[in-house]
């Protein structure tokens, strides 16, 4: 069985996050020095070869994304860290920034060197006001020590909008506007912040970079599942004994996460379902628990790895009620820019409430399934596309729970 392995949380509890010397004593900023001694193309090739894929949930090859921004010709390029962490049940990025802010800054500085950017932003969700001070302290320490050279990093605060985690909405928000997603393409690596080539990466993605540069792509690529190597940080909530976090190699199975690391279900109750990847994730039944958590393995069972939230429900839980709550979340967080999502999330919540209050019919289940399928392919951004997943997967795997509530 896979053991816990700490890469992005390697300094957790070992250093004082506000002391740069502690970070340096653990080998910190050596990777940045090494990166700068390499030529840019070799560096990006190394990141590509490590097969590191975005930890924000979409799993895009990190080095490949960097190469797009590297190739783009422009007078200014930007590096943006997505620290919006809006997915309910997720707090991994907070753990990294709270306990080891320099690992994020070093990762961003390596990216800045690779693509040729002189300006960076950390977009930190409004719910984490205490992190702004920690990040600013760390940035000024790194500046003072001369590690950042001409790379300047600014911290910006979000203000409570889930959709601002979507990279183009995030970019709009940094620009001081309403956080509404843009049409993609163009993707940010060619046209991002103020129309300039921009790399947006998640906190956990950046935190992997110094270790990859230090230990090499081959070392990293050999950990976990080859198509999505490395580790992933999971945060466990719901009906589970150990409500805490674990960083494990990606070949760990869902069952191991719940029973080995999570210590199983409290009170001797039976497992019912687990939702992985946050509120936009699929609900997974018992028979699929032996799936490794890696990106493609999850996709193969119609689920997502997403942000790495693990939300467990025991046999006594009312799954239709939970899904109704989730439907309300999406109705509230839809930005309203496109009709299928603006209208779709509202209708979905309406019908789920009807079913949940015992007034639904089989016709409602059919309608909501059709609506969900339409939304997954016609919504503009990932919010609307993923919103139906909890509804559709529970209708698929837990139909009896719905039928029990119909008139």
């Amino acid at each position, binding site marked *: 069985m896979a053991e816990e392995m700490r890469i992005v949380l390697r300094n957790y509890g070992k250093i004082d996050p506000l002391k740069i010397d502690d970070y340096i004593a653990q080998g910190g900023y050596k990777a940045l020095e090494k990166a700068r001694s390499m030529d840019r193309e070799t560096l990006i090739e190394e990141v590509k070869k490590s097969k590191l894929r975005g930890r924000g949930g979409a799993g895009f090859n990190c080095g490949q994304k960097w190469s797009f921004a590297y190739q783009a010709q422009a007078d200014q390029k930007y590096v943006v860290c997505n620290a919006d962490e809006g997915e*309910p049940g997720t707090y991994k990025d907070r753990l990294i920034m709270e306990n080891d802010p320099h690992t994020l800054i070093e990762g961003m500085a390596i990216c800045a060197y690779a693509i040729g950017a002189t300006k960076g932003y950390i977009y930190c969700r*409004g719910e984490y*006001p205490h992190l702004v001070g920690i990040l600013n302290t760390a940035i000024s320490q790194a500046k003072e020590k001369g590690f950042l050279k001409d790379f300047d990093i600014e911290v910006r605060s*979000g203000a409570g909008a889930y959709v601002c985690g979507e990279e183009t909405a995030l970019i709009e928000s940094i620009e*001081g*506007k*309403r956080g509404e997603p843009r049409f993609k393409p163009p993707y940010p690596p060619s046209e991002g912040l103020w129309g300039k080539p921009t790399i947006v990466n998640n906190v956990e993605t950046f935190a992997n970079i110094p270790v990859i540069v230090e230990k090499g792509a081959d070392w990293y690529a050999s950990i976990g599942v080859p198509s999505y190597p490395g580790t992933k940080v999971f945060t466990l*909530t719901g009906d589970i004994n150990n409500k805490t976090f674990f960083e494990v190699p990606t070949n760990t199975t869902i069952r191991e996460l719940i029973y080995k690391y999570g210590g199983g279900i409290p009170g001797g109750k039976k497992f019912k379902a687990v939702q992985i990847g946050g509120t936009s994730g699929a609900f997974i039944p018992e028979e699929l628990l032996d799936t490794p958590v890696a990106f493609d393995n999850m996709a193969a069972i119609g689920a997502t790895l997403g942000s790495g939230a693990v939300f467990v429900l025991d046999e006594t839980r009312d799954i239709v009620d939970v899904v109704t709550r989730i439907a309300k979340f999406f109705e509230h967080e839809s930005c309203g820019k496109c009709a299928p999502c603006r209208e779709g999330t509202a209708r979905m919540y309406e019908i789920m409430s009807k079913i949940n209050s015992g007034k639904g019919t089989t016709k409602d289940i059919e309608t909501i399934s059709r609506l969900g399928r339409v939304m997954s392919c016609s919504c503009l951004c990932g919010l609307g596309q993923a919103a139906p997943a909890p509804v559709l997967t529970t209708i698929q795997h837990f139909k009896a729970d719905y039928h029990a509530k119909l008139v």
Partner: protein
Amino acid sequence: MGKSYAEIIMPYKDKKGGLIEAFHALQREFNYIPEEALKEAARIFKIPESKAYGVATFYSHFSVEKRGKYIIRMCESAPCHVAGAGEVLKALEQYLGIKVGETTPDGKFTLELCECVGQCQAIPVITINDDVVLSVSPERIPEILKKYE
């Protein structure tokens, strides 16, 4: 007298995209964005008032209506929901004598709902301005709120 609206907004004037940062600064001072302050911001950033208003109302942390000194937010995301957020909310409403979205008559507390605040290691969670209160239960409400009275 505290600072004028313009004094609060000006430091962000030359920051690219600084409007949202200026709104944050206003809210730190007043807990909401007063109408005159919003107009002042529009003037300083040279944008139409409607646009400034559009930005302010997009984000759930910003309010263009007067709120209490302390804003209590109850997380109702799925993990907090199954951990008993509903009961905590009822207890809060009862204790404060107000409903969600309202402010106590003495102007002290405003009660709001929110989504996950990323503190799911010990739920249910409420926040009171920038403070996070973990593992809240209905019984603990009086003791928690006493600190702010």
